[in-house]
């Protein structure tokens, strides 16, 4: 599209001319409200888009405007009407964009500029409970689509002048406000710089959502793993910012982006912190084992039953043999069939309304499962295995990682179906190499396992007791490594009595 050139010196003009020009611009849009009147012998025009502005503010504005018995000029308007947001605009293009975002314009005939007041009204939803990342303990609120609300939440939680909320605008055609959030006394400068660079270098027409932005700025698109953490939980966002990570919030998106991430940060939950450390550690380890099991258990079943039944002790082998006796398919087909069924159930459950979803769970899970066994399509044991792997993949605190795990399973099942243990091992090695090749904001994805950092190592796998938790992740080189002094922490002196 050819960019429309605004002819220089549009103002001063007559009210009628202005009206004509504006109406031409808003052709076929019946939105523009343009009213002109005469006050103290001067012609004035007020124009705005009705539903984008706060109507009672407009009334107030007009009341002050008309009650004064004097001749208005642009200068007096700016100086004497007590609304902070008064601005001069003389560029037609700017007037148009400002009209859209809810500014009220006043133009006095033959003046050099129009005066605008920002009185936008914006509909937003209220704060609600987190849906996708639900917690048992801890704060319940989730981010909303309103950037202002989200910033408000964050500002109230981190009441420190060190918190930086850099504003950037991304999108050529449909610009969108993006905030880069970090603690300037903690976060690593290089990480901040990398993130800023990536955001600034983006040359796209629009950013659909934070999740899309995350895909634009992540390190590698061909990689299977999510390389930036996304969360809808303000508390998680804030904890990670305090750890020295860089966050990004996007207008109109209830998702925050956090970087750098590691595979382990996807397995952490803020709830680990709210629990006492023993249970917190237990749950975190449980989750790690669960994810591993979820990836490996169905392929393992397929490999063992098709190739390596020698590995199973005789008694177990008998029961597996019995349950498989009526099944006409090879284990590979059987497993793929059932995994497919489970994926169907999940997807259907995610799409359906909640109330119907429960019924569907019962129908799908119990009825179909039982019927499949009775019909001799699958074995009981496989149903247990597949259900277990599905259950295990639900434990991932991050939905993104959960979906990756779901995806990874299928090639592994195929590999073990064709090549047994050898194929399975090949798949696992490939997965590890793939993880090693993954980067998040230029950092390794396997920190602190590789490159090894012993002091970070324990904190990743175990939720350390609070008094040992005095350190931020050394691997990321935060500006302030210690959260509180080590010595006092060890003596529990940080607790005032």
């Amino acid at each position, binding site marked *: 599209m050819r960019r429309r050139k605004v002819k220089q010196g549009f103002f001063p003009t007559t009210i009628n001319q202005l009206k004509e020009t504006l109406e031409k611009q808003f052709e076929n849009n019946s939105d523009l409200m343009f009213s002109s009147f005469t006050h103290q012998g001067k012609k004035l025009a007020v124009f705005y888009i009705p539903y984008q502005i706060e109507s009672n503010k407009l009334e107030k504005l007009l009341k002050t405007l008309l009650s004064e018995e004097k001749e208005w000029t642009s200068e007096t308007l700016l100086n004497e009407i007590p609304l902070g947001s008064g601005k001069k605009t003389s560029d037609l293009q700017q007037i148009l964009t400002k009209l859209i975002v809810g500014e009220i314009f006043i133009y006095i005939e033959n003046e050099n500029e129009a005066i605008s007041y920002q009185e936008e009204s914006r509909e937003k939803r209220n704060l609600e409970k987190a849906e996708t990342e639900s917690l048992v303990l801890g704060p319940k609120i989730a981010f909303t689509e309103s950037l202002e609300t989200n910033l408000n939440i964050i500002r109230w939680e981190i009441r420190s002048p060190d918190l930086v909320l850099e504003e950037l605008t991304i999108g050529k055609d449909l610009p969108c406000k993006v905030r880069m959030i970090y603690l300037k006394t903690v976060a690593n400068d290089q990480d901040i710089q990398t993130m800023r660079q990536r955001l600034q270098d983006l040359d796209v027409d629009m950013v659909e959502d934070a999740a899309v932005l995350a895909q634009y700025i992540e390190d590698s698109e061909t990689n299977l793993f999510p390389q930036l953490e996304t969360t809808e939980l303000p508390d998680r966002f804030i904890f990670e910012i305090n750890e020295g990570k860089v966050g990004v919030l996007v207008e109109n998106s209830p998702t925050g982006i956090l970087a750098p991430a590691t595979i382990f940060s996807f397995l952490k939950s803020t709830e680990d912190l709210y629990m006492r450390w023993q249970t917190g550690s237990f749950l975190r380890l449980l989750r790690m084992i669960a994810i591993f099991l979820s990836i490996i258990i169905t392929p393992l079943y397929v490999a063992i039953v098709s*190739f*390596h039944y*020698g*590995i*199973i*002790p005789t008694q*177990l082998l008998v029961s597996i043999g019995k349950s498989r006796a009526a099944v006409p398919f090879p284990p590979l087909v059987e497993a793929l069939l059932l995994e497919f069924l489970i994926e169907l159930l999940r997807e259907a459950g995610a799409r359906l309304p909640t109330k119907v979803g429960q019924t569907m769970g019962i129908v799908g899970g119990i009825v179909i499962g039982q019927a499949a066994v009775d019909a001799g399509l699958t074995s009981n044991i496989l149903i247990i295995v597949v259900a277990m792997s599905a259950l295990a993949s639900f434990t991932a605190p991050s939905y993104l990682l959960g979906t990756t795990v779901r995806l990874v399973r299928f090639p592994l099942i195929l590999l073990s179906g064709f*090549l*047994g*243990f*050898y*194929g*399975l*091992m*090949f798949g696992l*090695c*490939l997965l*590890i*190499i*793939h993880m*090693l*090749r993954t980067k998040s904001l230029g950092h*390794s994805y*396997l920190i602190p*396992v*590789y*490159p*090894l950092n012993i002091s970070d190592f324990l904190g990743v796998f175990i939720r350390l007791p609070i008094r040992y938790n005095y350190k931020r992740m050394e691997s990321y080189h935060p500006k302030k490594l210690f959260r509180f002094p080590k010595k006092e922490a060890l003596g529990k002196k940080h607790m005032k009595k």
Partner: protein
Amino acid sequence: MGVPRFIFKVAHQDAWISILVTLVWMLLVIQVMLMILKQYKNADLYGIQVDLFGKWIGKLLGTVYIFFYFVSLVTVYLNYIEVVHVFLYPTLSPFVMAILLAFLALYTVMGGFHVAVGISFIFFFLPQWLWFLLYDPISRMDFDHFLPMFDASFTQIMKGAKVTIYSVLGFEILFFIYPYLSNKKKVRRSAFWAVSFSSFVVMTCTVISIGYFSPHDLSDVNWSVITLYKSVSFSFIERLDYIVVVEWMMIVLPNLVLLLWVISQGLKRIYNVPPKYSLYIISAICVLLASIIKKYDTIHFITNFIAKFGFWLVFIYPFFLLLFVWIKKLLFRKESSQNA
């Protein structure tokens, strides 16, 4: 995996002494290697040889190294595929196995040096749990098998040490990765630890094998180490040897990766072949060779060849190299003093 048998064949119940001798020798060689490397600030062996012997001979020696590594690479493929073949899949085509291995190695090396190092690091730790399974063979060991001690003659022990070489080869890679290391002060300590650990592994396996098998059996059993695992079983799992064979891929893979990397580096440094092509070509040839060569005797022959070759190249040659470096330094100093 099959070492204990070979060492035992030569040095009998005193095989463990042979391994100790090898260890001492290796520590010596590493010391020599570091002395050579320290003369140059940031050079690998390819560069050092060219500097010492001139362009032609230096490049020729570099080529010898590349050839050595290439054959080693092939033997790694051959030996692992052979084991998988015997223990897991008598029917699976070696071509498929080789191509999968080659794919993994390629994918790693293409990720750059740091991925190659990462693999070596992570895959070093992941199979360590296999140690725990050895409790069963250990509990069944018969310590009488070690008697009479110190029975083997000096030549027997030295021969045994020579046999050990193939299993501990690989530390000479230090010659090539040295320029990439950032903390050069720690190199010696780490190298010593690494070599000691690998000797310790070989030693433990040998000692357990000698104790577990009767002398007669041990001379007959190929891959005695895996056979050790056959006796381990739990109530929920039998035949752990399957798992060990597969887990061994994690031990084999770093070897493949580092060898592949060194070869491609050498080709780049000596012949200016971009790694992009050389990696593919080398891997393709390896896969081809690995799927063609099937006879146990041939594999054994090649492995023996590389062990002998390695003995001269890795255990003897560095001493001469150090000599040359010193001579050159002496000459150079004389020259410079004359000039002054």
